[in-house]
């Protein structure tokens, strides 16, 4: 079952074409990793999925992105609803300068008018889902900025989870974390995929190999190869993929 399907997807920044005719299907409740050298268009592709690129001047897209039978590139799409459904975790954790509690419930405060007991339960469930509850339950009103980098990244994921998205987009979510924290975030991703569809952009091929079910390799805006992670890392079909993952590219 596919959650996101792209059809002839293109994106231009002014005259520069950053994404070229991408056709791919992203499976529901799976982790899909997008890999490729810097500037290959992988983060741009990720950002199209919740229309983050719309914020950049001169951006133009063509093609289709079908999510639940709907083309999210259509003009009539409500971007607030879209970003609620398809949330993003960034490279550097970006908690708001508010308390831990307020960070988690922020989205629901914006979208709905929940009462205190409902917000409390939401905060607890969201923090539990990212395995932070036991650590932070007595510090909920402390500033989120006092947390460690890993805790901040988990908190940002909890903040997303609290608005009940269906897809989590992760742009290099572990690049600022040490190996132990990275491992813990990866374990969390494995837990989360039971409930969410996850697409992760990563520079670490080992990370892609460890955690993803499917992998796509991009080069110069093109999706060169897309398939089961097991196959991509043991027997890639395209020589350019082979050269990249074996370190011969460049």
């Amino acid at each position, binding site marked *: 079952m596919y959650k996101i399907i792209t059809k002839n997807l293109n994106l231009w920044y002014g005259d520069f074409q950053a994404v070229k005719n991408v056709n791919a299907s992203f499976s529901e409740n799976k982790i899909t990793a997008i890999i490729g050298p810097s500037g290959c268009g992988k983060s741009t592709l990720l950002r199209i999925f919740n229309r983050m690129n719309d914020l950049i001047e001169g951006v133009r897209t063509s093609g289709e992105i079908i999510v639940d039978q709907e083309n999210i590139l259509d003009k009539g799409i409500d971007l607030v609803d879209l970003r609620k459904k398809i949330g993003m975790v960034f490279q550097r954790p970006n908690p708001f300068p508010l308390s831990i509690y307020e960070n988690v419930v922020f989205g629901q405060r914006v979208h709905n008018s929940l009462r205190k007991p409902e917000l409390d339960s939401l905060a607890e469930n969201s923090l539990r889902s990212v395995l932070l509850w036991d650590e932070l339950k007595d510090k909920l009103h402390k500033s989120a900025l006092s947390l460690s980098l890993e805790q901040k990244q988990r908190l940002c994921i909890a903040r997303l989870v609290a608005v009940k998205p269906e897809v989590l987009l992760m742009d290099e979510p572990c690049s600022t974390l040490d190996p132990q924290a990275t491992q813990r975030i990866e374990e969390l991703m494995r837990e989360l995929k039971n409930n969410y569809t996850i697409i992760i952009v990563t520079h670490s091929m080992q990370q892609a*190999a460890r955690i993803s079910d499917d992998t796509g390799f991009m080069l110069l805006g093109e999706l060169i190869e897309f398939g089961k992670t097991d196959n991509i890392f*043991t027997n890639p079909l395209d020589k350019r993929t082979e050269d990249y993952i074996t*370190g011969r590219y*460049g």
Partner: protein
Amino acid sequence: MQRHFDEELKELHRDILKMGVLAQEAIYKSIEALKSRDKLLAQEVIKADDKIDELELSIDERCIDLIARHQPMASDLRFLTTGMKINAELERIADLALDISQRVLEIADKPLLKPLVDIPKLSVIAQNMVRDAINAFIKRDVDLAKKVLLSDPEADRLRNFVSDELVNDYMAKDPKTADRAVPLLLIARHLERICDHTTNIAEDVIYMIEAKVVKHHPEKL
């Protein structure tokens, strides 16, 4: 892009080739020792096995080290994992040559039960299969690996023929021939096992080159 890793892989390649040469030499010498009833040559094969065991350990260590340090992917990963398996198969082949030499020592001082015809034929098949399997690995030659797999039934046929002959024409008729017939029977068995290990190498080589698993799936050949 030139990679330092490629140099390390080449060194590993050379070591596996060396292992193959030593294993081939062990089979050749053990059969020569049988044919000429040369106890010294048989003992030489037994002694040389320590060197082969050492090389096996060093190749294994090198593979593990390369996997740990480079975390290889795709064709590099297939080469390293295949290299480890081939290394183990070659070590077993050399052990079987040692077993043949031990059988030679058992019968060297006794009169030959019968002229040696089919065992030398079987040994030629085994040596050719080992040579072709190693060459298939070195030259990345799938056709040669397939040729190795196709040779195995003939080795099985010859071994069965030798066994039937020794059991029915000698031991059944005169049980006193058993002490000279059984070592020959075992030698045929050792040679046939060498062929089996060689088919494993050929299957591994096909996986290394084409990422296709033909082990236990002959229909995929």
